[in-house]
């Protein structure tokens, strides 16, 4: 061992002695911070959240929904930076309010998927046997139906069954709830499989046996012992799921079965896109690019989270 390496080794030891050991959370945060793409993603995401939250200070929702036929299909200008749509509504203002709904749909749909997926996965992985067989066959069956088919069928099935309602000082079309449910119900399957796999391996560990030995109920073991230990892959899958849900909203809306106007979403701003493809490109370009940027940012963050929370996966992929 040369003098320099000895010195470096000594300094490393010194560092260890001086600082208290880092908690797993701190370690994960450190790995996450070093992940360049993840930091770019966080920056982009913050920018988009500011865009949809601070935007309303400049444009009111009434303005976003106001039609003015004298300026319909106007190209981008000083008065309307993103141009106007077929009924003269300002596209910039609509992307702000549409963004709120799109992001909301993304997050809540993942909430639905998380609830269903975790429940199915946990029951299946913990109890095994007949419950596992039935639930997993059902999960596989759902996975084998191309997702868009399910989205279209469910959207048509539930469409128009929930009336318009008011909350948080805004009026929401009932179709917002329908879309959240539809996307949630078609995206829980991967989560269920991940949770199940985690439960299968964790339930064999000693601390679970110990918990069972002191008489903990199944409910306690599932919720307080196993679930917190499998939270990392769930967080990663849920993050990436938000990106998927935002894209799904766009698909359903593009096919004309999404959120109904006047409530704007990035997706339903695109549903007239096809007929304005060549003559009014601003109508589909701006909502689309916002979807791409948001999804890109979330994917970056999700990637960073995976590397930060699961160092073993990182070691395998490098």
């Amino acid at each position, binding site marked *: 061992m040369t003098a320099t390496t000895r010195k470096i080794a000594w300094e490393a030891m010194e560092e260890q002695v001086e600082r208290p050991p880092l908690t797993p959370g701190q370690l994960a945060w450190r790995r996450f911070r070093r992940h360049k793409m993840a930091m770019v993603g966080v920056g982009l995401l913050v920018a988009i959240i500011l865009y949809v939250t601070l935007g309303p200070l400049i444009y009111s929702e009434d303005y976003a929904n106001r039609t003015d036929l004298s300026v319909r299909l106007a190209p981008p200008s000083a008065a309307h930076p993103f141009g106007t749509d077929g009924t003269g509504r300002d596209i910039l203002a609509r992307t702000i309010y549409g963004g709120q709904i799109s992001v909301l749909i993304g997050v809540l749909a993942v909430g639905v998927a998380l609830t269903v997926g975790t429940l199915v996965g946990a029951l299946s992985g913990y109890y095994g046997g007949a419950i596992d067989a039935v639930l997993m066959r059902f999960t596989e069956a759902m996975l084998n139906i191309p997702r868009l*088919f399910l989205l279209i069928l469910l959207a048509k099935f539930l469409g128009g069954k929930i009336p318009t309602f008011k909350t948080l000082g805004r009026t929401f079309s009932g179709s917002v709830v329908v879309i959240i449910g539809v996307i949630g119900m078609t995206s829980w399957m991967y989560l269920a499989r991940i949770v199940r796999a985690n439960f299968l391996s964790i339930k064999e560990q000693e601390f679970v046996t110990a918990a069972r030995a002191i008489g903990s109920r199944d409910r306690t073991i599932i919720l307080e012992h196993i679930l917190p230990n499998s939270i990392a892959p769930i967080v990663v899958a849920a993050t990436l799921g938000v990106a998927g849900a935002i*894209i799904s909203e*766009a698909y359903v809306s593009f096919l004309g079965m999404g959120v109904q106007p006047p409530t704007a979403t990035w997706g339903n701003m695109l549903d007239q896109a096809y007929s304005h*493809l060549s003559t009014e490109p601003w109508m589909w370009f701006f909502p689309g690019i916002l979807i791409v940027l948001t999804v*890109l940012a979330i994917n970056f963050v999700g990637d960073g989270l995976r590397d930060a929370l699961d160092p073993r996966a990182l070691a395998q992929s*490098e």
Partner: protein
Amino acid sequence: MTRYVVRRLLQAIPQLFIISVVLFVLANTMGDPLASFGGRRRIRSEDRARLRRRLGLDKPVMVQYVIWLVGNDWMQVDVDGDGVADQRGTRRGVLRGDFGTSFMEGRPVLEIIRERLGNTLLLMLTAEAVILIFSLAIGMYSALRQYSVLDYVFTTFSFVGYSMPIFWLALLLMYLFAVNFKRWGLPHFPTVGMYDLAKGKTVGQVLWHMALPVATISIMSIANYSRFVRSQMLEVINQDYIRTAHAKGLPKRMVVLEHALKNASLPLVTLVGLDLPLLVSGAVVTESIFAWPGMGRLFWDAAKDTDVPVLMGILLIISTLVVIFQIITDVAYTYLDPRIRYD
């Protein structure tokens, strides 16, 4: 091996049963198939009742499912609505190859699907070939020239490509290569259909019309798979047997193509097999946008009209293909990688 295949095939039966029940219930309750009957004319309520009876829509969903599955030619059917069964049914059920008749067109579902199936397969198989060639080439290049400028370009491209809704990508491609190329006087791609009606259905015409739809379907998968190939390749080229191959003096080309690529591309087989449903979804959107006369577009039209027999026909055929394709994937994998054994 034979036992494994038989077991998988037997497992596929309950799976397809679950799929068909879920889809049938959804398809039959999602709307009123009679809503678009008769165009603008109002249908009298007794006609409506007669139509419902003739189409078998007056029965509970589960009874309809049984009839759809095994037919009704073994039982007496009430034709005139007086509550007395008076005649044998004519449907033979899906299990005996009768997919019913389209509500809208009045033709057998299988006949309608057969006309479209070829067009979809043409699109999908071409796309699959393009996907494999490009993702292998890009992934291999990125791995061998890790951290080079092009590697970064491909990485960026793959992240962006993966984040795009497929229909938006289609619009972008159309806008650039069809609309603007035309404006600039360059040779431009067509945006709709399979061939120019004036020029007829020639191989050249179909290929020319296929370019944009195939690109649309492929780009997202290429973005995804090329990353996968890259990481697999990086893992393989650092292994001992590759160093041995180099050490014994094999030309680099040989080492990469013969030794590394083979092992690195194996897991891709599973990925391609599992992603088939995703590709099908992409095809639905792409066919709708580019007016490609395939099954995806047929599905979309049938969904709008609530044409249940056609919907169920397409869904069942696609689901069966997906399930069978997965079994083939798993079996193919054991041939490609003898280390894997299913017992």
